[in-house]
């Protein structure tokens, strides 16, 4: 299946600012996509090896259709994955 990956700052440093189109096996999970990205940039290796969602979300938020994607969530053909920085709030 084909996915589009759109990096936002600061991930453009590692991946460039243009969207990336990836061909991955049907039913690939986010973790598997991060493993593919890790081949482009070593910065993504620890993210691909994340021990859990909450740890990942402290480093990177991946959105698809406005929803946060989990590590072991299967993706769909045509998904656009936005790589966004982690968020907090408060002062």
């Amino acid at each position, binding site marked *: 299946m084909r996915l589009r990956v759109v990096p936002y700052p600061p991930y453009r440093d590692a991946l460039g600012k243009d969207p990336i189109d990836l061909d991955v096996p049907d039913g690939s999970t986010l973790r598997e996509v991060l493993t593919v990205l890790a081949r482009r940039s070593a910065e993504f290796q620890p993210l691909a090896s994340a021990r859990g969602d909450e740890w990942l979300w402290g480093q990177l938020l991946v959105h698809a259709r406005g929803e*946060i994607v989990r590590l072991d969530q299967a993706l769909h053909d045509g998904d656009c994955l936005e790589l966004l*920085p982690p968020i907090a709030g*408060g002062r």
Partner: protein
Amino acid sequence: MAPRGYMGAILEVDLTSGAHGVRELTQEMADRWLGGTGLGAQYLWQEKVYQADPLGPDNVLFFATGPFAGTVVPLSNRFGVCARSPLTGVWGEAECGGHWANDLKKAGYDALAVRGRADHPVYLWIHDGEVAIRDARHLWGQDTFATHDTVLKEVGAGERRGQESGVACIGPAGERLVRFAAIMVDGKDGRAAGRAGMGAVMGSKNLKAVAVKGTRDVPIADEPGLKRYLADIRKDIVSTSKGFGALGTAGGIPTHDKMGNWPIKNWQQDHFSEAPDRISGAAMKESILTGRYYCGTCIIGCGRTVHVKEGPYAGVEQAGLEYETTSLNGSNLLVDNLAAVQKMNEWCNRMGTDTISSGAVIGFAMEAYDRGLITREDTDGLDLTWGNHEAAAELTRRMGAREGTFARRLGEGTLRFAREIGGEDFAIHVRGLDFPAHDPRAFFANAVAYATSHRGADHLSSFAHVFQRVVSLPELGYPEPVHRQDAAASPRLVMIGQNLMSWYDSLKCCKFLFFGGIKPHHVLDWYNFVTGRNLSLDELIEAGERIFVQKRIFNLACGSGPWDDTMPRRIVEQSRDIGTDERSLPPFREMLAEYYRLRKWDPETGAVAPEVLERLGLPTPVLSERRPVAAV
């Protein structure tokens, strides 16, 4: 003997008479009220501060640490300050990090209660059990950077950070009673007790600064056990929060824009997609960032330091932007000039104003200008067109200095100004406290949270939007984060979040521990190591519930109840694109009704069910006649 984790002493200072003394902090008080503004809730209630003029001598300004201050527990060098708010007329509180709380505690005091009014400007110098009221006439009129540095010299600064005395002070805004004046610590590194006008209360007492230094030990029940426990966990906290610490709180701005969360054009606009490239943490890193800043005992380091070296705002060198400041003074005003927003931050910090309320009232004024309700004649010549950062920066300065008629009027706060000009419809507040930078249309829980928070629109008193996003609470029935538009789950989540945060805020933990993977059971363990009380999570969360409901009772006695648990029409009638397939509006009324049912609060009168009061050991609320907020 002092309860373990505490010094057993609340320092009481009467600035009218110049007398000071100590009220004992007993084990029972520690168990029931924990510390921070929990202790403040009990104290202010006992002293009937709900009857006081917020800017009069009978108001009590209460600074409090918690049981973790002065220990090795990370992210706990924090204090809370509370009083009746001059901005809202109801419960007022603000929380602050930096380098101050540990020194008050190690000087021998868990809390400081200031009442009365000195007949000339003074500052307090509190060190190892000694208390002095010193003349501050030479400091009056100075900004907070200069005040901090001068007081530090006068009381004796140490060789390096951590050995210095802590100085909490006000700037011209507090002196001149700007209703959203802040109390600042750490000078140009700028940590703020920003919200609800605590700086104006301090100024109304002619109190310019409180300097603290302490070397005493805090009694801890099991320090070796605590150290062993923390040794294992510190690395995890740093690793989990790494991404967040790398770019600071403003690092997430691209995400906030995507999620339809941050304020844009006084909450009118869905997205400001060109702005994140220019005014986010990443943009700061590429341009003006010079380093990171850590509050005392912090290991995450979300703070920034910056230096603007070129352009019209060259020369700004101080604390870097936080998310709230960047939003309310950037996107909220359609300003995407990083240096300009940083300049506004500097003015707020120097003058001592709340960056949230400062940006909010300017955003309101810009909309009023856009609508023709005010003209350039009214604005003392400032062109308040959306995006005009020069005008916004100058107005920020003038408000802090209380300079000029227009700035004086805005210094009364958004709601009072809105009432003057007939703009209440687009004043975005609850109880007169301006919205922080999280949209309830993006996180439904915040609709209920803002409406029911004791100090007004406040995302921190429940932190529910975080539990609707990236943090689970398995011990409290949430094995996964709740979906941000789950209206059915939001009321209970808000109630649980409020009880939990009342507990955290009273222990004086930084909430960013959650971003380091810390869960309530970890904090419970730390509490039991420090105090030796061996309480259960349920017992501590019940203490949090007691504290939250006590503050609600305070508000009822001020004349503020369910009639003030409101949402601005813009937020419940104008939908927002939050990046999902459909535009979003929170079903506020239904969620609020369910919240009242869960809390067992009467939705008409505000009465708290007798069985709740009995269980929590709280007084029956004094149901005063309704009084408008922001009118005292």
